[in-house]
């Protein structure tokens, strides 16, 4: 009797273990933004952006901005992007424009978490009543750190301070704003969109990218598409029936379908649902993602795509013979 009891308990335990294993397997794609090891880059940024600018810098007319990057599979490239974003934010805050090729400057002396390239000097244009006035602009990298996040194991964030090299330039320049990072704001918005997509909340997404607004840009090909651009799909059999779609990145998009509701596809898979993309219909109604060069993290795109891929048909529908 006792033996039987032990056997049943061990069976239950075995079953529970097996079940938990299965659940764990499926949990990989259950919440794309959750990880036991890492946090999101957005959380990291929100934490570090609380750090106030040091008094010494404040007294010497420096302003503080932040940048981050996760797109590349390389810490050096991400460092360059992060510093670039922080400098561009500073330029925007100062309401001046770049005179130098910032990309080239950073590429020639790349900032890395482990090297000593921490100070740069560039030229900017200060808007005046007459011709814009060139001015030297000083950049100091105070923090540059590689962090493993959910977006990328090679993500990088940075904190920089910047000022005009000469007091007279500072005096004639417009009063600076103190936005720490617009890119982080865009990241936050995009994260809400991508999280909503995990629950297939398409109407919320349509509202967030203002799909019904007038288009400001008409991308001509998929190479020009950016996160949040919209498109129209039409029925292969009855081209009058149309469905909206929104581009996410790396050839992945989301759209409504005739019978399967909202789906997340890569280009070409719309034909599984008897749909075609009208390449004349690409539209951009919200400029922020393109302006700040936002790209949805590859790991998240992959996760969202794979989360629902089992629901799709494996073969194109038969539409009758073709001559």
């Amino acid at each position, binding site marked *: 009797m006792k033996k039987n009891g032990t056997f049943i308990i061990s069976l239950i335990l075995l079953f529970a273990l097996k079940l938990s294993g299965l659940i764990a397997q499926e949990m990989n794609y259950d919440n794309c933004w959750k990880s036991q090891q890492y946090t999101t880059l957005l959380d990291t940024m929100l934490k570090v952006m609380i750090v106030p600018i040091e008094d010494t810098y404040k007294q010497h007319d420096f302003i503080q901005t932040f940048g981050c990057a996760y797109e590349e599979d390389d810490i050096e490239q991400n460092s360059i992007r992060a510093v670039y974003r922080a400098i561009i934010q500073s330029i925007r805050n100062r309401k001046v424009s770049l005179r130098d090729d910032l990309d080239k400057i950073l590429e020639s002396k790349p900032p890395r978490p482990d090297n000593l390239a921490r100070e740069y000097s560039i030229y900017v244009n200060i808007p005046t009543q007459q011709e814009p006035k060139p001015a030297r602009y000083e950049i100091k990298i105070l923090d540059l750190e590689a962090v493993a996040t959910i977006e990328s194991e090679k993500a990088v964030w940075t904190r920089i301070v910047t000022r005009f090299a000469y007091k007279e330039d500072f005096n004639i320049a417009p009063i600076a704003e103190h936005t720490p990072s617009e890119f982080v704001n865009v990241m936050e918005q995009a994260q809400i969109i991508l999280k909503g997509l995990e629950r297939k909340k398409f109407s919320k997404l349509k509202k967030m990218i203002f799909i019904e607004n007038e288009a400001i840009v008409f991308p001509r090909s998929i190479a020009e598409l950016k996160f949040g651009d919209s498109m129209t799909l039409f029925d292969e059999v009855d081209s009058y029936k149309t469905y*909206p779609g929104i581009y996410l990145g790396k050839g992945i998009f989301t759209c409504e379908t005739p019978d399967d509701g909202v789906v997340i596809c890569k280009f070409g898979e719309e034909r599984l649902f008897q749909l075609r*993309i009208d390449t004349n219909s690409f539209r951009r109604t919200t400029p922020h993602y393109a302006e700040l060069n936002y790209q949805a993290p590859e790991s998240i795109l992959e996760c969202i795509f794979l989360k629902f891929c089992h629901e799709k048909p494996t073969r194109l529908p038969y539409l009758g013979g*073709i001559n």
Partner: protein
Amino acid sequence: MGKWFRWLWLFLFIAPFSSGWGQPINRILIPQMENYELDIQNTYREYQKIYYEKKSSLAELRAFEDIISIYVSQILEIYETLSLSGFGELETPRDIAARALIYRALIYLEKAPLNLEYFEKACYDYYRALAMFDNVDTIPAIFKRLPEPILVGAKEYNRLIDVIDHKGSELYAFGKVNLYLRNFKITTNLDIDNMEFVRIECPIDKKKYTYYSAGNLIKETFKKVLSNDGQSSTFLALPEGSYFIRPKTNNKASRHIFLSALYVRANQQHDYVVEPLVDWFIMYENPSTKKPRFTRSTTDNLSSIEGNGKNSKREDRKKSSNKSDAMEKLIVLSEITNSCLEKVDINLIFNIKDPWIRNKFTTTVAEVIYSQVETLNFHNCWSKWMLSWIIAKEVTQKFSPDTEVPTELIKLVYHCLKNI
């Protein structure tokens, strides 16, 4: 006098050399290509003879295939030399090269019922021949009149498209996939030798066409990508169906298969972009579909974005004004056809000099184009030239049945399709 004589002598001495130097390279190479083409035609004729009349062994047939392959490679080499040298017009050499490939495809098609692999081989040659005309506006060689008619079976043909139409319908069971690899970096972590290209088996597949070459072609393209600035391309001839690339070591349920899936429909062309994604890659199609311009307007655009397919404004309007809409489109198409008639030699399209007949002709062309544009063919046909051929055939059937489809009519339809 002596001075004049010296000049004359100098001229006579230099003239033959200067004409030799000035003689373009294509004047030597094109006749060579023409000779090879003649040899191919003769070999094709012999091949048919030994295949059907003498019932020769496979080894003999193989020998003929090898001979024809040598001629084809010679022609292709000369064509490459000419296109790289930049001497003169490329139209004639391109036509010869394309015809050579089609002849070899026809030979493969003869033997294909014995060995299904030959359908695939024929398809590669057929696609390669048509691809030579991808970026040019000239009519592909397949639609042009042959320098000399060829005898296939008991019938004589003047154009290769007529032979393909008669013997090569199996080619239409395949789809062409252009693969464009891009953005691959030196850090991209891929075990290329460990990849395998697999088809999702489906019981409804009628004939088991092969896709043997695809796997190796994909591997070669992946190997080239890193030495080629992260970009590389190739094309595949695949029977209709769904395919994916997976690592050999992983099990079948690997997530990789969903990212690298590609879907092929028969007689279509698909452009697939391949890009790295996290630690694998994603293959996605480059959509090329455009709704015909004459069906779009500002109001269409707005409703199409708002539409959900069930109650869009466009559909409501469709019900109420379907007929007038169709009439409007037909008028636009007739106008397009009329304007395109100037681009072709109308004397070679039936006898349409009489204004009434000409009017009837343009209406017929417009009607047939409209019927095709409104059906799947418009989105599914992989080349405008092929669709032009289908439309031209139908127009001929309606306008002058039992006559050969005029080449100028194919050109006319092509120009019309380009304008809508």
